[in-house]
């Protein structure tokens, strides 16, 4: 009995991603009502580079979240029972259906109408010729590609750009209206204020970032249904599709790796600093030992062992998507174990300082239990370190994923990620003629994601680090 034409499927990473989203929303609601938690975030919102980065990041997060709702499409019922496809799809796949399904035979250049390699084609009259065959989908609507192609691409690209800019303009106008309402000035006045950078929140930077996004996305969206905007790879898959799918992998690793180990780092770090003495010695020994193993080697050793485990227990993982997903979680945990030691050390140092303060001494005198002091009095005061570590680690982890996939200890080879994209594309550089578009697409998307993450992390660090705030570095 099932009326829906699909069945939702919750992967492990999906569950963790949505727990994270719920936690972020919960934190936002909690922090909104408390001025001391709201203050650093309003400092973040006053940083121009931070706001611009946040706009770009929001676009990436949207793609990542769409890609984190999975389902199985229904097949025609068999024997009266509902049947579902074995292949998992996500909402992003649904949005990108044309990109996903329009497969070519092999390489084709960005926006091309013909394949990148010559093939022997059988003509209707029985002769054989070597030529570049037409693509099955890319530019298939053109009758005479040689003459129409440039005009068609320019027209469609321009139309997309115009629509995107129109949308952007209305967003900007709506924003001025909102600013006008709040300040009590007219819309015209607010518009001028925004563009002269006179608003408290740097809307100009955010709008510039949004404009950059529109200029890029507009033509791409307009052209993508009819062409392969970033070309196709060796097996004829659209490179733009791969780049968009890579976003989720990168974001999952960037967030979950820190998140998975956060409870341990927090608990052990605070315990070491709070109890000192023998507990401290034990915990220090633990993290010195872990951090003395060079990161890549520890990761490689752990991932190798995980691979062996998965190979020998293949029956535990019913489909390749689930196996890839479990590997991704395991990779996050392993990355977390290696990045955990730094945060633990910082928390220990901060707790050592805090425990000598008078309010903790007072809590002791009142007979508050150790556990309660750590939870109620120490933890809230080290949270800024956790927040800084969370955002600072993100970009490093996204970059690490690419390197690890190259080394062969990254995500499952069947999972689309920036690492697997670069890895399969790097040999194509040596090919004659060269295939450069896979690398270019991975480069552009990765740079945008990591750069935005770095800029946002800097803004967060500047706003949360009490040393910088006191020194007046962020006015």
């Amino acid at each position: 009995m099932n009326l829906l034409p699909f069945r939702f499927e919750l992967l492990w990473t999906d569950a963790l991603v949505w727990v994270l989203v719920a936690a972020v929303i919960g934190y936002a609601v909690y922090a909104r009502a408390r001025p001391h938690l709201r203050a650093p975030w309003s400092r973040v919102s006053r940083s121009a580079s931070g706001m611009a980065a946040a706009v770009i990041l929001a676009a990436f997060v949207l793609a990542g979240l769409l890609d984190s709702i999975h389902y199985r499409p229904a097949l025609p019922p068999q024997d009266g029972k509902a049947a579902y496809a074995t292949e998992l799809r996500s909402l992003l796949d649904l949005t990108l259906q044309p990109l996903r399904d329009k497969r070519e035979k092999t390489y084709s250049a960005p926006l091309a109408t013909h394949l990148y390699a010559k093939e022997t084609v059988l003509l209707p009259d029985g002769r054989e010729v070597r030529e570049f065959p037409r693509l099955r989908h890319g530019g298939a609507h053109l009758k005479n590609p040689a003459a129409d192609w440039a005009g068609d691409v320019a027209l469609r690209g321009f139309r997309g750009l115009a629509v995107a800019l129109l949308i952007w303009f209305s967003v900007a106008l709506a924003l001025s209206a909102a600013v006008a309402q709040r300040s009590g000035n007219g819309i015209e006045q607010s518009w001028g204020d925004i563009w002269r950078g006179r608003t408290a929140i740097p809307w100009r930077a955010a709008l510039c970032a949004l404009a950059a996004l529109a200029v890029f996305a507009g033509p791409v969206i307009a052209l993508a249904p009819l062409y392969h905007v970033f070309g196709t790879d060796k097996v004829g898959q659209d490179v733009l599709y791969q780049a968009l799918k890579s976003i989720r992998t990168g974001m999952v690793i960037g967030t979950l790796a820190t998140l998975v180990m956060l409870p341990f780092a927090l608990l052990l770090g605070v315990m070491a600093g709070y109890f000192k003495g023998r507990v401290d010695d034990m915990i220090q020994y633990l993290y010195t030992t872990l951090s003395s193993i060079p990161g890549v080697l520890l990761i490689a050793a752990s991932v190798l062992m995980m691979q062996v485990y998965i190979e020998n227990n293949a029956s535990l993982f019913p489909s390749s998507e689930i196996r890839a997903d479990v590997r991704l979680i395991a990779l996050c945990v392993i990355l977390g174990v290696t990045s955990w030691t730094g945060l633990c050390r910082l928390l220990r140092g901060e707790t050592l300082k805090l425990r000598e303060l008078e309010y903790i001494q007072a809590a002791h005198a009142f007979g508050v239990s150790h556990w309660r002091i750590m939870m109620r009095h120490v933890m809230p005061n080290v949270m800024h370190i956790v927040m800084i570590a969370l955002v600072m680690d993100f970009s490093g982890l996204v970059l690490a994923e690419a390197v690890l996939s190259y080394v062969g200890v990254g995500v499952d080879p069947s999972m689309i990620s920036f690492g697997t994209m670069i890895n399969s594309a790097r040999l194509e550089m040596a090919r004659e003629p060269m295939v450069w578009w896979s690398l270019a697409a991975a480069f552009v998307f990765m740079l945008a994601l990591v750069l935005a993450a770095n800029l946002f992390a800097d803004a967060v660090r500047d706003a949360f680090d009490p040393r910088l705030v006191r020194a007046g570095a962020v006015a």
Partner: protein
Amino acid sequence: MTGYLIRRLIYGVFVLIGVNVLTFALFFFVNTPDDMARAQLGAKRVTPEAVEKWKQERGYHKPLFLNEKLSGIQRVTDTVFFDKSVRLFAFEFGSSDQGRNIGYDISTRMWPSLAVQLPAFLIGLLVYISFALLMAFFRATALDFWGVVLCVLMMSVSALFYIIGGQFLFGKLWNLVPISGYNGGFDAIKFLALPVLIGVVSGIGGNARWYRTIFLEEISKDYVRTARAKGLSEARVLFRHVLQNAMIPILTGVVVVIPLLFMGALITESFFGIPGLGSYTIDAISQQDFAIVRVMVFLGSVLYVIGLIMTDLSYTLVDPRVRFS
């Protein structure tokens, strides 16, 4: 001071024991030698005899901790734990799962690694610190601002792109150096130039920014104001006072990596085909050679511990407070 160093040394040995036990648990408890044999042999050829033979050839057939069949000291020494873990402390690395002598491989392969890493490290240090000093000298000007922008931009690019881009530009487009390969003697220079250059360039972003932060933190201290109040020139303040006092945070991050230079860089060596320890490790990973990976983990931590002790020693050179305490 000597007492302190001896304590650190003993602590280092304990850390190594911890690493050893950890890797042993990782390699022999998460998966048994039987699992490893099955993974290595591939699904088709797995028979109980083949698994037993595989284990026999590599010495995994012995009991893990205690050999009940033998007597005396051999009860402990003729075990997997003793052979594969305890012997590492004597630098007896044994043979790889493919049957090669790991100790010999390491002793020949560490030199090419060092030949890439040492110049990259030294030139890098010079470049990063000069760049950071430049930004600190012109702090809060346009030069500083765009310098930081450049740093953030450069650190947002994956190391893989630096290598691929460098190989494409210098090797393929301009034909200045061979794309990959290695040769001994003077010939090595043309093979090493590009990996060293890329090693330096790819690190500029993160490192220069980090050193700049250290310098700026030093500059905001009181003794700098005193030095300026004495009428010293800004250049003298920066090079004579700030640089010297910034040595401690710099040494903390720098000295510890010196021994690790022997280990080489994984992806650089594999891209450039340099027969060093980095590419050795990558090959071991792709061939699932557990023995080599285990040895490299141990070797890496030994070098790290040596680096930590060297860091302590280096403080005594730059900080008289440490020397006399």
